[in-house]
């Protein structure tokens, strides 16, 4: 998880499109020939963001739905643990193997 945090920081910085918009506007101000290049860069960044979003896991549902499902799974694990504990604490006897 420690290796993911710097990556998450850089992702947060990369999430913003404003610097790219600013670069495009600056190029237009200067009437430079790099406007097209900047626009292409902007579109590429948007495309990358789309691909990144498509690959992100767990965003098929809203946060509230996900929290609900998480609670359901936790409850399931708790119930099954209790059931197993109950069975294991029963008077179990060894089953002799058929000779």
């Amino acid at each position, binding site marked *: 998880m420690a290796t993911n945090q710097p990556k998450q920081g850089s992702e947060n910085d990369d999430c913003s499109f404003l610097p790219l918009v600013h670069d495009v506007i600056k190029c237009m101000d200067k009437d430079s020939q790099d406007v097209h290049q900047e626009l292409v860069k902007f579109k590429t960044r948007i495309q990358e*963001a789309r691909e990144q979003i498509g690959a992100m*896991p*767990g965003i098929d549902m*809203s*946060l*509230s*739905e996900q*929290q609900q499902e998480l609670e359901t*799974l936790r409850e399931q694990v708790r119930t099954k643990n209790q059931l197993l504990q109950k069975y294991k604490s029963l008077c179990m006897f060894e089953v002799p193997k058929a000779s």
Partner: protein
Amino acid sequence: MAVRLSLASTWRAARPSKEMLPHTMTDPPPNRELIEMLALSRSQKLPQGGEDTQILELLVQRDREFQELMRVAQEQGKVHQEMQVLEKEVEKRDCDIQQLQKQLKEAEHILATAVYQAKEKLKSIDKARKGSISSEEIIKYAHRISASNAVCAPLNWVPGDPRRPYPTDLEMRSGMLGHMSNLPTNGVNGHLPGDALAAGRLPDVLTPQYPWQSSDVSVGMLPPHHGNDFGLEPPGHNKENEDDVEAMSTDSSSSSSDSD
């Protein structure tokens, strides 16, 4: 505007993040015309009804929303990982429960078999108790069967001995049935002369000597009937034989059947 924003945020909270992220990126669409307009308005420095300002504000707002949604998406990714771990645990628990279920089923089968066999044995015990017979009577009966040498040859039997474990022809003729079939129809005393053998009258030499052959030949030592106990003594039974049988019955080593 504030109402619109609050409604939009409510709507976004209910929607999956996968839908909302592309929406924030492309609304308003960052096309060339928009940027040209912004650049133009900036270069001209002319107030144009605040439209460009509104557009810029909208752009900034959308960028902020996008960053917020990305943060939420990352949190959801962590939650998703936790959910995957929990799902694996649930699967493992399910396997354990199934294993325990199989063992329980096997144990129940074994117990059912054992209980059934025990019940059958109890029934047999009850049945045996109801039809209990004294061991003395059984031993007496065994002696009577053995005494006829039907199960084992006599100790002094040698090949050539006419004695057999079954009634021979001579013995049948010398018995009651043989006598009945030779009732007087002609001849003296009901016997044809020279027909002593056919009449079943054996010379004493050839008469087989059996323990039961005494005055009670006519009574016979028939085996007891079914349902009747073995203790019924025929009338006129030889007391000596009875004593012998009783003495033998109490002695477990005297049975003729234990010659191995």
